[in-house]
């Protein structure tokens, strides 16, 4: 059974027809499938790039994200969250189905997709450690076709918003993980993308830094309402704080996609954790008959 996001009442055929005319969704994912070839070692590793994909990572996923909306991908390790985000970021090619950002197809028009998206992969890697924060941001800004002046203005603005002023002129290798995370988010927003993709954005942060980062994301990025956010996480408080809707995925399948309140209501759960467990069937639900005496 295929689950669709609650916000999208149209049938697949209807949406397919409409998407050729106009798509005002920030992100459209339609019947997306991704399989990988099996991992090989030894001399068989030479054959791996040519092997048929047989390990299913995404199994026909469909949903949309509206402009200004924040959608969380909630799932266990290996559920397919990162695979989905990497397809949208044009870093992976889907096996079947369609992924669009602001109406542009991730496979057919990847450069147009990249113009619309900012990508942050939740680690403190991804910068040139011997360059300063400013030099890094300027370099990536220029590769995103910002003029020197525009890049400088955006860097100044984002540094103020993200409390990065002091970090800008220090080598990245001297910055804390939390600061590098904020720098990475600033890089993702430098060219004013319509869509922000975050893959476990607080993965390498301690509890305090993670909490600050979430508050910051909520108050500085989502508050403005001009950026759509799709983020993967298995940190439940993060999902509850940031997401307008939550997509629960497991083994590459979309199990549910709705608001927190609706998820709790439909599963009869008191908490998001409970709703997640019930949807994924990860823990047996005790009934009066099953309960130990």
């Amino acid at each position, binding site marked *: 059974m295929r689950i669709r996001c609650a916000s999208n009442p149209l049938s697949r055929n209807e949406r397919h027809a409409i998407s050729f005319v106009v798509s005002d969704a920030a992100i459209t994912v339609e019947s997306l499938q991704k399989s*990988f*070839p099996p991992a090989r*070692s*030894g*001399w068989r*590793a*030479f054959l*791996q*790039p*040519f*092997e048929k*994909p047989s390990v299913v*990572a995404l199994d026909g996923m469909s949903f949309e994200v509206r402009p200004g909306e924040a959608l969380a991908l909630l799932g266990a390790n290996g559920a397919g969250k990162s*695979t989905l985000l*990497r397809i949208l*970021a*044009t*870093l*992976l*090619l889907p096996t079947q189905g369609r992924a669009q950002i602001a109406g542009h197809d991730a496979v057919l028009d990847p*450069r147009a997709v*990249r*113009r619309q*998206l900012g*990508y942050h*992969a939740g*680690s403190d*890697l*991804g*910068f*040139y*450690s011997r360059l300063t924060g400013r030099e890094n941001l300027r370099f*990536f800004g220029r*590769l*995103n*076709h910002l003029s020197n002046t525009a890049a400088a203005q955006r860097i100044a603005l984002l540094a103020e918003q993200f409390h990065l002023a002091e970090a800008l002129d220090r080598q990245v290798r001297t910055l804390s993980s939390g600061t590098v995370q904020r720098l990475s988010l600033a*890089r993702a927003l430098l*060219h004013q993308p319509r869509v922000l993709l975050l893959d476990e954005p607080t993965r390498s942060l301690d509890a305090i830094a993670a909490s600050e980062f979430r508050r910051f994301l909520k108050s500085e990025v989502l508050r403005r309402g001009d950026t759509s956010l799709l983020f993967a996480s298995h940190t439940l408080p993060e999902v509850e704080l940031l997401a307008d809707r939550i997509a629960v995925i497991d083994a590459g399948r979309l199990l549910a996609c709705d608001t927190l309140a609706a998820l709790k209501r439909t599963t009869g759960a008191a908490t998001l954790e409970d709703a997640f467990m019930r949807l994924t069937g990860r823990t047996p639900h005790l009934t009066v008959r099953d309960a130990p005496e």
Partner: protein
Amino acid sequence: MTRSLRELWFFFWRDLFIARTYRTAFLFEAIQALFGVAMFYYVARFVDSPHLQDALPRGESYFAFSLIGFVFFDYLNAALDTFDRSLEEARDSGTLEHLLVTQTSLPVILAGSAIYPFAATTLRIAVYIAWGAVVFGFPLRDANWLAVAAVLFATLLAFSGLGILSASYLLLFKRGNPGKWFLLGISSVAGGMLFPISVLPDWLQFVARLNPVTYALDAMRAALLGGAHLHAVLRPLLVLLCFSAVLLPLSMAVFAWALRRTKTTGTLMHR
């Protein structure tokens, strides 16, 4: 003491087991050693030859001949290494994904990654030759700098194609590029680096004529030592440009295909 020895052994064991996963690297390093031995065999044969001076083109000194061979071989090395190293560094530092999600096209990312290493290698070559000229009397009086620049440019284009092909292999198979080792090995013997190809057996001379390094070194020696005008080095220049015309588009297509494969298999960031 025993514990320290055991701990040292653990480190050796770790590296051995990691290296064991790259078995082909051992094989190609062994083959590379054969090329090294062959190179010294022919250097010795050439140096021992009573007809040494006759074998050198345009009556050059062996110092000038070998210095150009040595420093321009560095160019080939840099070309083959530059794209590989940029790719590996980008992968290891995590910047590769962030480069690939920018709006900059793949050819620009590739070319951009090569500019500084090529410039640095060119500067290093200039420093070598300057030392040679100032301290050891390397003859620069007759050099035709326009022809030198043209040969450098054509060499850079031809070698870049080889470098991008090498990076494509690295992208797909992660380590141990046999093509790169083979080319470096064969070029050290049949490329005219430290001895003229005329001292080689016929079949190796034939191999040398298929190698762009041979033409690059011929043209560079003619322009730098013989003061040859542009029209005098036209033939090796055209050969180098033909290599470029085939290798550059081919290598870009192969790299784009390899990148597409890694995006399909999900191995873009794998090591």
